[in-house]
């Protein structure tokens, strides 16, 4: 402890008081709330076992992992947008646009040309959203809503409204083959997770993204060009959508203009279930992946139980509400101590 010119050195100050109060709060409830996303996930796995004996088959678990890849990748990209306090509604449409791009470019330019074109298409859309939000100061909701419509429209026009078949064995095999017992596509998610975690934890970029979401004015007053970072998160989200769109196409073998309709809501739900705040500044990479897995597991359980798709939507909605309520409960618990 420091000597203090104020003469109050012999007694704890307000700052220390608050800090040690934080340390003193070490109860079971606090611990469970702190890791609520993970706790919910574990509970869900236990419930799944009771609801269906087919859940814990290797085939089914592999299936869940495979299905969760596009959602996981998109959610990770979206997390950075949400951390700044923004939102990206265009993610589903971008996936569709990318899948159509891949299918249309493949015949002329080959596998790698198609993949490159897909990545460029997705990132470019993100760049446009980012420009609109950061430099033209259009509200993220509106800017990405517009891009969502435009991208879907372009995908429909380019494909003439028809799914375009992708005739490439290597490409289609990627979506179904496994390596070391795990689906190949899962490695894509693992790689994205590692990159996102690195950016979030270790880089100047990650630090400033969180700072902008916590207090954009103070961050700007610290001499940070916040516009650049706000721009960049949409480009990242666009890139993530491109990766997810390509992965999704490897599974279906088609470039579909109606791919991933309504996917933005699943992605937002995954990020929010993972404990992120839509007002920015709060959210974690690991929890976002868990959030995506939770949503995938819910769908899977209901499929196993033969619950029809329409009913599934209702259950999903309720679960999102519960997740957000849990989050606010957590905040209230934290602020009370």
């Amino acid at each position, binding site marked *: 402890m420091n000597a203090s*010119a104020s003469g109050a050195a*012999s007694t704890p*100050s307000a*700052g220390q008081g608050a*800090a*040690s109060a*934080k340390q003193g709060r070490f109860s079971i409830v606090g611990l469970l709330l702190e890791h609520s996303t993970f706790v919910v996930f574990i509970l869900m796995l236990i419930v799944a076992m009771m609801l269906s004996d087919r859940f814990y088959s290797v085939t089914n678990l592999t299936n869940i992992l495979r299905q969760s890849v596009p959602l996981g990748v998109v959610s990770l990209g979206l997390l950075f947008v949400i951390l700044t306090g923004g939102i990206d509604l265009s993610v589903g449409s971008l996936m569709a646009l990318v899948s159509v791009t891949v299918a249309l470019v493949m015949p002329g330019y080959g596998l790698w040309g198609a993949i490159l074109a897909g990545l460029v298409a997705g990132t470019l859309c993100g760049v446009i959203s980012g420009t609109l939000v950061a430099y033209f100061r259009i509200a993220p909701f509106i800017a990405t809503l517009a891009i969502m419509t435009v991208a879907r429209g372009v995908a429909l026009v380019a494909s003439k409204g028809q799914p375009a078949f992708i005739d490439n064995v290597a490409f289609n095999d990627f979506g179904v083959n496994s390596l070391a017992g795990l689906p190949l596509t899962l490695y894509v998610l693992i790689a994205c997770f590692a990159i996102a975690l690195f950016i979030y934890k270790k*880089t*100047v970029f990650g630090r400033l993204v969180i700072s902008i979401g916590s*207090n954009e004015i103070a961050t700007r007053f610290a001499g940070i060009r916040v516009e650049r970072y706000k721009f960049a998160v949409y480009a990242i989200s666009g890139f993530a959508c491109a990766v997810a769109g390509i992965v999704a196409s490897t599974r279906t073998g088609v470039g579909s203009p109606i791919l991933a309709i309504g996917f933005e809501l699943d992605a937002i739900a995954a990020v929010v279930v993972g404990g992120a705040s839509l007002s920015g500044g709060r959210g974690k990479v690991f929890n976002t992946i868990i959030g995506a897995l939770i949503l995938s597991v819910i769908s899977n359980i209901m499929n196993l139980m033969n619950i029809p798709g329409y009913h599934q939507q209702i259950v999903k909605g309720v679960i999102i509400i519960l997740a957000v309520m849990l989050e606010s409960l957590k905040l209230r618990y934290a602020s009370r101590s």
Partner: protein
Amino acid sequence: MTNYAIEIRGVEKNFGGIRALSNFNLKVEKGTVHAICGENGAGKSTLMKILSGIYIKDGGTVVVHGEEVNFTNPQQSRARGIGIVHQELALSPDLSVAENIFLDDLGQGGQTVNWKEINDKAGRLLTSFGFPIDPKKRVGDLSVAYQQMVEITKSLAKDVSILILDEPTAVLAGPEIEILFSNLRMLKAKGVTILYISHRLEEIFRIADAITVVKDGVTVTDLDPKTCTEKDVVTAMVGRELKSLYPPKDTKLGDVHFEIRHLTRRGVLDDINLTVRKGEIVGLAGLVGSGRTEIAECIFGIASYQKGEILKAGQPVRVSHPADAVRQGIGLVPEDRKRQGAVLAMGIDENMTMSKLSGVSKLGVIRHGQETSLAASLKDKLRIKLGRLTDPVSSLSGGNQQKVVLAKWLNVGCDFLVFDEPTRGVDVGAKSEIYNIIHGLAEEGCALLVISSELVELIGLCHRVYVMSEGHVTGELSGDQLTEPAIMSLAIPKRMAS
């Protein structure tokens, strides 16, 4: 029947393992202005929150107007006639003044709003308190000082018998403080009891009938302002004698390091000229709205200006974004610490290094070890009292938060710094530390510009003071000319004075 409005006996409040209040005692006589003094973290705000029903006490008794009360929510406190004006204003910026004043009863009992009635009523209230505010104006368009007047009016619109004011003058300047005081005297005459919480001792001596000093959650002493001196209060607050709040003005002055020429910002600033030399602490005085903060905004690239130039070390600098300013070695300790100064939810270390992350990173990757040791050395240098460096800035007291903002600029190595109300909401002890830091910067050869509404502060700290009024620099004072009356006569707009 007792003649105490509030009696507090042996009240306890703990947070985790920390005692915010222990065996706290206070007696407030009806119809008096009772001042509560204490450093930040002494327990003043905990006490207030217990009285207003935001916190529930852990033990002891609170008696209001002779009846024991156990508030569990703010509604119960309000029902007992306790009104509170917080330091942080709780207004809706997009609503009008009148709407804010009557927010909890816009319909005045009915379900539809009679706008004429509401506006007239608000207008009458504002006039009766001497606040020159148009009730139809959007609150967000008012300056902080005027917003506070609205907040006070809002509180007084209710039937309050006990009014708690938390640092009410922190955002007010000269004449506004006079208005506030005359209102408080009027309310007192009407039998309202006022609990007045403030750091500013001169004010307390002017307005208070009784003083209670709080330190570390216990009542240290009750003093009578008629018989005690400011020194007695300070001694009781900090637990020892504080020699002088201000460091000596002994720094060596160098060449002119920073200069503003003919700066004009339409409708706000008109042909501003000022210079600051190396090692010099220059003050900027003026009433709220006179253009002081607006100059800072131009210097720091937050607002643009139409004419004029800014020179640093003789070279013109073009600043159109705070990032440009920081690159030129210009820093700003802004007026509103919580909104502009620090990212409260982020770590102390993270805030300290934010403006120069290049110093603790390589190829965009943060070196956490380097960051921690840098933050630790800044903490030691500025004597910041904290738990852990990774704790959020919000866990700190006002004074220590401000030191974190200062640490951020020390880390950048700015040689020209603007301080906008550097000691607002900061207790006496931390104040003197901040003055010493400013003095230390001057000794290192920095040029410094200090904006303040506290005249004593400007007189005590600055070599030279520019006085502003309605967007003009109306005078420049130094040495023996630097007195409160001299500043005030330059600060008050001509047409108001005549």
